[in-house]
């Protein structure tokens, strides 16, 4: 009977209910978008950390770090690191956490009359560590996200072409082309990284050193390390290691924080500056962070106004249906029953608005994700019931005041009206 009454009375005064539902829906949309962005961005960072390891970029002191992942800046490169120092990186306290490294040297060659960046690196090679152990290094150990169509280069004159460059030159795996000072090169594969490499030729380090006239030098080293998640201590250490107490410093130094490992690399390599690299953290992360704050504020405001909307709706309903409420009381209905009826209506509005809002919010977050990352975000499905629940609670909160009016209503005042 409860449901029967609820169903019938829910169909009464639909217009106002739709309005209140829309208010709740709007709030839920923002709430869901917020949840999706928060979780999605976190996921995205975790994913990057997993696939790259926590990469550490080692450059000569004084180099700016804020450029693209491989630092393809022709104005840079005056300062270099010694290729011979590279094995030192695998000789630090956390040597066992270093799982890969690759040197990079930037040069330029002329291809069909245009200047094209040529990046020298090791694709894969075994080196001997200071303690005599062998260690496999190369770009294949640090850049798991490089998608190569064709094969990785094996011979000295084989190279990878960045996808954009390959398209521009009309070359694919197996093709050969003249590359000015670098001579005739063969394309082993085409690589797509989403970064500056897409416009470059990726060749063996020795070739780039010859072209650039910098034998035995490198511009940067990318290091892949296994790390533990950052925490308050490591954040403080990163900002100001000098302010740590001795005990704190020891704890930090002897924990595989990415900042501790970077610090140890700086100690090991002459003239080196080592910094963790988070692709998301720098640019997009900041944008998303601001958007999250903005969304949080707007969401709060929206939920507050949704509660007021429901409150206004329910108050109007109680006034409009005073006679009906008085009748229910006169028939001996329990107060809880009458309240339940009206609260259930509010909850239904909340649930409907909340569910619709959760759907719209997920879509909105996809839109924002596409705008910022060029790619949608994973929808955290657990947020759907949570957002809906929040919407229901807000609607119920809005219905709390009208419930008091119901309790106060005296049946004699509405039933014997002379009309």
């Amino acid at each position, binding site marked *: *009977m*409860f449901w*029967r*009454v609820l169903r*019938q*009375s829910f*169909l*009464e005064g639909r217009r106002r209910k739709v309005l209140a539902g829309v208010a709740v829906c709007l709030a839920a949309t923002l709430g869901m978008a917020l949840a999706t962005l928060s979780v999605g961005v976190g996921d995205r960072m975790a994913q990057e950390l997993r696939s790259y390891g926590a990469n550490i970029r080692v450059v000569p002191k004084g180099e700016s770090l804020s450029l693209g992942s491989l630092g393809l800046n022709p104005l840079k490169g005056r300062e270099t690191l010694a290729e011979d120092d590279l094995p030192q990186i695998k000789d630090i306290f956390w040597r066992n956490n270093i799982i890969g490294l690759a040197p990079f040297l930037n040069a330029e060659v002329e291809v069909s009359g245009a200047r094209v960046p040529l990046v020298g690196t090791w694709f894969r090679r075994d080196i001997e560590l200071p303690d005599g152990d062998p260690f496999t290094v190369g770009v294949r150990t640090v850049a798991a996200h490089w998608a190569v169509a064709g094969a990785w280069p094996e011979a000295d004159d084989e190279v990878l072409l960045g996808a954009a460059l390959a398209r521009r030159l009309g070359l694919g795996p197996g093709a050969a082309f003249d590359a000015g000072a670098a001579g005739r090169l063969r394309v082993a594969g085409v690589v797509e990284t989403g970064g500056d490499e897409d416009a470059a030729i990726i060749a063996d380090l020795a070739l780039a050193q010859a072209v650039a006239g910098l034998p035995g030098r490198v511009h940067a080293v990318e290091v892949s390390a296994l790390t533990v998640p950052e925490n308050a201590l490591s954040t403080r250490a990163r900002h100001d290691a000098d302010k740590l107490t001795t005990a704190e410093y020891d704890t930090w130094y002897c924990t595989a924080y990415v900042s501790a490992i970077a610090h140890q690399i700086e100690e090991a390599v002459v003239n080196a500056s080592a910094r963790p690299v988070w692709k998301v953290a720098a640019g997009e992360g900041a944008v998303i962070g601001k958007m999250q704050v903005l969304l949080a504020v707007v969401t709060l405001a929206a939920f507050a106004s949704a509660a007021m909307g429901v409150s206004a709706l329910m108050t109007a309903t109680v006034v409009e249906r005073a*006679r*009906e409420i008085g*009748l*229910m*009381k*006169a*028939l*001996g*209905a*329990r*107060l809880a*029953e009458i309240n339940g009826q009206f609260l259930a209506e509010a909850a239904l509005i909340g649930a409907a608005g909340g569910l619709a809002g959760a759907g719209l919010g997920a879509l909105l977050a996809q839109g924002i994700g596409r705008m910022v990352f060029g790619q949608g975000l994973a929808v955290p499905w657990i947020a759907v019931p949570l957002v809906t629940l929040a919407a229901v609670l807000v609607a119920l909160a809005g219905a709390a005041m009208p419930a008091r009016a119901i309790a106060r209503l*005296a*049946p*004699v005042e509405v*039933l*014997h*009206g002379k*009309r």
Partner: protein
Amino acid sequence: MTAAVSLRASVEPARPVIELRGLGRSFGTVEALREVSFAIPSGAFVAIMGPSGSGKTTLLNLLSCLDRPTAGEYLLDGIPTAGMSEAEQARIRRERIGLVFQQFHLIPYLTALENLMLAQHYHSVADAAAARAALERVGLGHRAGHRPSQLSGGEQQRVCIARALINEPSLILADEPTGNLDEANETVVMDLFRQLHREGRTIVLVTHNPAFGEVAERTIRLAHGRVESDR
């Protein structure tokens, strides 16, 4: 509780359903009722008459536990109603009293049948078959699925009467049940009350209609809030 009451009722068959002792109700300085005392035995059909403003509705509100007296005592089925909480009053209304209103007061978005079932639901459990039987009783079996707006005034009042009966109350209270009806419907409704009386139900009915005065076995006249005559 009910068992105890019915036991007592069988031992003392004369125990009244309603017993008023010096009942008074004032609204600020307006004394709507004063020093009203009478008893109504089980099975009686009592008409309450009197000029407008004499306190008839006020009295009925007190009898139906929708209002509280400012003086005197009201015993329903021998139980004093003073000091009852609102929840207890609601329980009395759903368990012992059937109300009929001048304006019918049906829930507009529920069908005739559902209106009866709602009263059943408040009392115990909704029972569609029993509700349908009650509608048959007032000659509206064929209008069970209609909403109040689809029913005539007389039909609405018959639904209202069926609702007042549905939970087998010990007392039926009606405030001008024919006040909004034309003559034909008035007769139908009056016949219905007469029939209920014959079945032995206790009925207290406020009316301006002298015809009802004839039907009732006893008429209490109010004037200025006092009992003027009681025959």
